[in-house]
């Protein structure tokens, strides 16, 4: 009896182990596409997003209709886990996907490892000729490209405005930099550590560095000499001093966006409370305001052009979301066929619209359908040509160090030039 029970237990344990093998990853969300036994099946990995995933499924369905011999399976993972899953899968050389929708900045880490397949030259020529400058920067490495852009990631040029508050105050949206700062100065109010209204909340992980870099570029300045950082120059110092004064002297905002533990970003505060008057942020926030917070565009908030600090309409941008093919994929041809289908300028526009993305393709960006679907993109479409690739480096490292520098100057009254010299040496230490 004991022997029999032991045998049953052993078989049950072995069976439970076997069922674990090859099971889809927990916490993942798979499309129904490609479940039938096809000649070639390729896998697409992306992160879970309620707007993006249906758009991906539609793209897959269209592709499969046009290519009946290829099936595509989508697997999506929570955003927080997605980068590490991507890294682990590429490391294993056997698991993972054929195609990844990944953040352009990650490609910098992967390109030099040979984890991704280089984009075929003829196809890349087409992509390059129809793309804005910043959108392919991170995918390039030593003359080859290891990914194809889907979007123009833009964190400068648009301003979320608290429409009811503007109406209540009886003021117009700003059209010049000075106008914007004056409105912010006049209407900000605080009581010690508590802010009742932040006039212009540019203090955030992404917003602060992009605002500063645009101020430098639009003034005709530079922050890099070759591949070395050089913030400690007259324009760099002047613009940083301005930003510091906006916080320390004019008090149009405070450091909460960088230091407060509440996970609420300035733009989210604008959507959910009356504490923000204007917040610079990318256009992707608009769909969050509408779909997540249930706000009415035009009534509760609007997205307007953010004035430039200097005479030139220039700003820095990093490469946004794009597609890459696993170098270990056994189905390279099918994978590239799928990527090429997806990035066709006419087809990718629908995807961009569904995802609330600014297109990476010039053709798609100038298609009137884009502004018909997303009229709030108008201020951005007009300035896309002024986008400059931020540079081939880990942007998180830059954001981290700009954050530390800014807090140090505001809190400890460190002279700006001294702080920027430290910033240069930290960034150039690698």
């Amino acid at each position, binding site marked *: 009896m004991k022997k029999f029970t032991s045998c049953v237990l052993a078989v049950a344990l072995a069976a439970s182990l076997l069922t674990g093998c090859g099971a889809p990853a927990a916490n993942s969300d798979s499309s129904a596409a490609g479940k039938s036994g096809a000649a070639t099946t390729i896998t697409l990995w992306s992160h879970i997003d309620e707007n993006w995933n249906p758009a991906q499924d539609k793209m897959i369905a269209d592709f499969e209709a046009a290519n009946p011999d290829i099936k595509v399976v989508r697997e999506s993972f929570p955003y927080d886990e997605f*980068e*590490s899953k991507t*890294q682990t899968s*590429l*490391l294993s050389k056997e698991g993972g996907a054929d195609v990844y929708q990944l953040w352009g900045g990650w490609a910098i*880490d*992967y390109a*030099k*490892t*040979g*984890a991704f397949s280089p984009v075929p030259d003829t196809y890349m020529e087409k992509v390059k000729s129809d793309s804005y400058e910043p959108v392919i920067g991170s995918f390039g490495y030593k003359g080859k490209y290891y990914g194809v852009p889907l979007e123009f990631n833009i964190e400068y040029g648009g301003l979320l405005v608290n429409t009811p508050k503007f109406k209540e105050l009886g003021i117009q949206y700003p059209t010049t930099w000075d106008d914007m700062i004056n409105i912010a100065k006049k209407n900000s109010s605080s*009581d*010690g*550590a*508590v*802010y009742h209204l932040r006039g212009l909340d540019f203090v955030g*992980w992404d917003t602060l560095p992009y605002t500063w870099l645009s101020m430098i570029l639009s003034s005709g300045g530079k922050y890099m000499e070759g591949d070395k950082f050089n913030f400690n120059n007259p324009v760099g110092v002047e613009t940083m001093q301005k930003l510091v004064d906006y916080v320390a002297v004019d008090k149009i905002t*405070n*450091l*909460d966006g*960088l*230091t*407060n*533990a*509440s*996970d609420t970003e300035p733009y989210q505060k604008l959507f959910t409370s009356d*504490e923000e008057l204007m917040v610079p942020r990318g256009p992707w926030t608009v769909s969050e305001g509408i779909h997540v917070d249930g706000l009415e565009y035009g009534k509760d908030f609007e997205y307007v052009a953010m004035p430039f600090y200097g005479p030139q309409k220039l700003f820095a941008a990093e490469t946004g979301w794009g597609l890459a093919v696993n170098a270990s994929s056994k189905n390279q041809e099918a994978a590239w066929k799928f990527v090429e289908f997806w990035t066709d300028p006419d087809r990718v526009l629908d995807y961009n619209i569904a995802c609330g993305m600014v297109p990476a393709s010039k053709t798609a960006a100038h298609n009137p359908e884009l502004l018909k679907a997303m009229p709030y993109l108008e201020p951005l479409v007009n300035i896309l040509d002024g986008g400059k690739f931020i540079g081939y480096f*880990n942007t*998180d*490292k830059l954001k*981290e160090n700009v*954050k*530390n520098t800014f*807090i*140090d100057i505001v*809190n*400890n009254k460190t002279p700006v030039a001294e702080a920027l010299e430290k910033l240069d040496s930290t960034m150039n230490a690698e």
Partner: protein
Amino acid sequence: MKNNRFVYFVLLPIFLLLAVFFVLPIAGGLAISFFDYNPLRAINHFIGFENFGKLMSDKIFLKSTTNTLVFVGITVTLNIFITLVLAQLISMLPWPKFRSFFRVIFFMPCVAPLIASSVVWGGLYATKYGLINNMLKTFFGISPVNWLGTASYVMPAIIIFTLWADIGYNIILFSAGMDGIPTDFYEAAEIDGAGMVKKFFYITLPLLGRTVSFVVAMTIISHFQMFAQFQVLAKLGGPENSGNVLTYYIYKTAFQTKDMGYASAIAVVLFVLIMIVTIIQQRLNRVEWGY
């Protein structure tokens, strides 16, 4: 001899388990710290002690080390003091149901995931509408404090939260230790005229030596490794890195800047730090006798 073989044979599975899941990863981590390591790279260059050399000139590492030592020093000291006092008070309650009730109450925060408790406390510490600031204003007329946005307040705020979240375990352990002390000693002391305080210092504390030694060691080790509350309450390391501790810095270096070799070097330092502190503490708390 036969007995020895049998013992080795019985212990072999657990040794294998320890070797595979503890010794090998530690050795692997140590090995990685000597490389400019990126797991995706086909070839990772051996750089010797370069990662360790970088540590001494890395201001954030030095700040994180200081923060870690300050956090562990203050929190563990307060934790041990508070839990000893509370365990003693609980053990003095005459009704067993009351004793159980208080143990359960104090243990409850330990059941909640630290990450979730941290999020809740983030709300309590909020500058505007936070419960703590509201209470300070209502009862003492104190203006709102930006607890988590001011460099000098971040660490005290996290220490207070950690004490709340973690004292339950030690109260249970000390209570169990106190319950195990024979009552004869107390009866004899009472006959000699000893009061409550004298009984605690001359009987309870010495006879609790082994428990105290174990609890202190485990608390030190666990506090060195705390991470969740720093990630949640000290946003991005906190203002001026005031909430940046070694565990968070390891995480950030490994997974954000993807410098895994350097992150491993920091992890080795943390490992050595824990080992040194634990050895010193074990030496100081060596118990020479029992009951």
